């Protein structure tokens, strides 16, 4: 048996989790490898997967069209199963910038991008991204030109969202791996542009 101790001795919740795990194994509800598989499913997704999806869309117009029509089907083409919901892909253009927030909690396409950034789940971001999104973007380091329309997406219910950022200038002819390196985690929710590293 694993003994879990916090600074004050036994950690109540860790012990309860361990006890529950052992009971589920004893009763045959879980097989020993099931929890490992679940943990792997939770920890494997990362923003690099989203970056590869975007890079493919930049170089392959047919893929981009399919991705915009059905985000989950597009990601599945690259071997990334989006498990939790439909995925709506939001294309940034010179005239329109998209920003994603979940005001009610922290909805995020975790099966594709992994865990969200700390600020995405903060109450400050959740409250302010809808009310003063341009100020929030500026504080995150991205001053959106006045001429670009800003569309905020509150990811409040049953769908999930991925932003397709604009391809940076000067990347003509780059391969997908080099393009993917331009796409950081924050760009995939519209909190930053894609940038040449």
């Amino acid at each position: 048996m694993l003994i879990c101790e916090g600074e004050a001795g036994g950690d109540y919740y860790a012990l309860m989790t361990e006890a529950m795990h052992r009971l589920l194994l004893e009763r045959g509800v879980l097989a020993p490898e099931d929890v490992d598989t679940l943990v792997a499913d939770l920890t494997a997704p990362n923003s690099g997967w989203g970056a590869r999806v975007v890079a493919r869309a930049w170089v392959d117009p047919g893929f981009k069209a399919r991705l915009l029509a059905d985000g989950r089907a597009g990601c599945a083409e690259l071997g990334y199963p989006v498990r939790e919901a439909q995925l709506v892909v939001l294309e940034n253009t010179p005239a329109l910038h998209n920003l994603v927030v979940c005001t009610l909690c922290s909805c995020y396409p975790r099966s594709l991008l992994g865990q969200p950034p700390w600020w995405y789940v903060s109450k400050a971001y959740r409250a302010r991204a809808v009310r003063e999104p341009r100020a929030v973007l500026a504080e995150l380091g991205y001053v959106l030109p006045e001429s670009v329309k800003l569309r905020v997406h509150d990811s409040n219910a049953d769908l999930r969202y991925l932003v397709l950022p604009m391809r940076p200038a000067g990347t003509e002819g780059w391969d997908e791996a080099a393009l993917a390196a331009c796409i950081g985690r924050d760009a995939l929710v519209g909190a930053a542009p894609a940038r040449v590293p």
Partner: protein
Amino acid sequence: MTAPRFAVGARVLILDLGKHGHVRIPHYVRGQVAEVERYCGAYRNPEDLAYGRYDGPRIDLYRVRIAQAALWPGYAGDAADDLEIEVYDHWLAPAEAGGRGETPPC
């Protein structure tokens, strides 16, 4: 399965049902007039699912679009800025003249 009640482009009023508990329609959009952007399919009601009621009917879900200037008096961004949010059918009514958002604020 019946056709969705609202077509893309329809103007709808987001109701304030005053429900407590696990409700997915935030206060800041209640009472607003919005435009249907897309139909998203039908989903079991999170207001039931959160309390272990898994056998309720599926409810139509829409994405609707609202002008930021209508949501936030004194909104500092561009006049064209807007917001999209998902709303379940039972939180929507056809927008009629006189609904909040139909007339500019005093």
